[in-house]
């Protein structure tokens, strides 16, 4: 699993929870909230889907790590690797 793979995992989740959003030009370095219509409940959905689909736990103190696609990739890569993915 590469960082690009992880970014795609997150984008796929966002596509499910925010189906009205255009995800074709999401800037990886920009905060997701600043370019998409996402609220706190949506970020909880991202956390839940990571748990359900990939067995990845994101503690509440680390939610800030999900701010952008880049930060998601940096934060989640070791967690996916720990899962052998």
């Amino acid at each position, binding site marked *: 699993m590469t960082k690009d793979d992880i970014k795609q995992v997150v984008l796929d989740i966002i596509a499910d*929870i*925010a*189906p*009205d959003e255009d995800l074709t030009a999401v800037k990886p370095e920009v905060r997701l909230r600043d370019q998409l*219509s996402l609220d706190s*409940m949506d970020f*909880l*959905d991202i956390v*839940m889907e990571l*748990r*359900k689909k990939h067995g990845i736990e994101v503690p509440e103190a680390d939610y800030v790590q999900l701010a952008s696609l880049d930060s998601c990739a940096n934060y989640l890569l070791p967690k996916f690797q720990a899962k052998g993915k």
Partner: protein
Amino acid sequence: MSSKPRIVITGLGLTAPNGNSLGEFRANLLAGKARIAVIDVRHMGPQPAGVCDFDATKWQKRKEIRNGTRVGSISIFCAREALGDAGLDWDKVDKSRVGVYLGITEHGNVETENEIHNISQFGNDTKYWTHHHNPRTVANNPAGEVTMNMGITGPHYTIGAACAAGNAGLIQAAQMLQLGEVDIAFAGGVSESIHTFGIFAGFKNQGALGAHEDPTKASRPFDKNRNGIVISEGGAIYVLERLDDALARGARIIAEIAGWCINSDATDAVLPNPERQTECVRMALQRAGMKPQDIHIVSTHATATALGDIQECTALRTVFTDCPDTRINNTKSFIGHCMGAAGALELAGNLPSFEDNWVHPTINIDELDPECAMPGLVINQPVKVAKVNAILNNSFGMLGINSALIVKKYGVA
């Protein structure tokens, strides 16, 4: 009620298993077209049910639909359609003076069952329980979803009244308008009940779940071989205003609320009580200043249970003696029992009678139960009458709640 402001209906939006507009719904009622599907109910398998096919994306973003509830989508669709029908200049309406009052039979069962099923896939670990559960299951959910979608900042809540809820929503709205709490009310009843297996299983184990090899014949009130309720979803939401306000803005007036009554059996949780039903209808007539002979259509509640239909007929035969111009019909024979929406939808399907003088029938009667025989019962075919000036809409529910709502043609004394 002469000293209180007169209340009128100026708009209507609905979704029923056999129609997503009043025109479509009415045409199917006059044509005798039932629409009942067979759906796969969790833990129970195929069951007849009334399913609505309105386009939720007409008025909601896909994310709203995903995060909300089915009954929220039904409510938003009906309320938005009612707004269009009422011809209100929405941008100029003071949204703080608008109220939303929706009758519900139950709420929250669908989401709770879904989440119990969801966590069962994860060893019943509650960390997989959705954080959307509480906003989806609070009892005001459907009315609250309407306010968020439409920017309404006046009061909103639901009225829990079992299967009398459709009438109860309208009555609540009329009362709030008379009190001056709001200037415009969106009111009626809604239901998502087909998405909870619990209601199917409950009726099944009560011996009250309807079945037939042809699902469109499964709901057959007053038929000798009726065997229970067909569960359906749906909604009907009306725009109600004080008459003076409606006249001032040049609104089209569909009908006037003439009188109502809600009372309680205080006898049994599930068995109806014809004496209390009789009292309920008589009190509604008294409040409307009407005699039984003034009612031209009685829209019955009958759900096709063995005892319930007979009890309602007993009550109606007691009140409507010597009423040669009173016709009696039933809508559940077409669409099943829409639960919280039933009363509101059943009234809606009869309202066009004020203009066209046709009375839609109750269908699926192959052999009339002699205990349900009533003068004026319109069986299987619509009838044309000389005039329709007043409709009595009956809706009764569990825990012994009875409601009778009378609406009359506007402009008729």
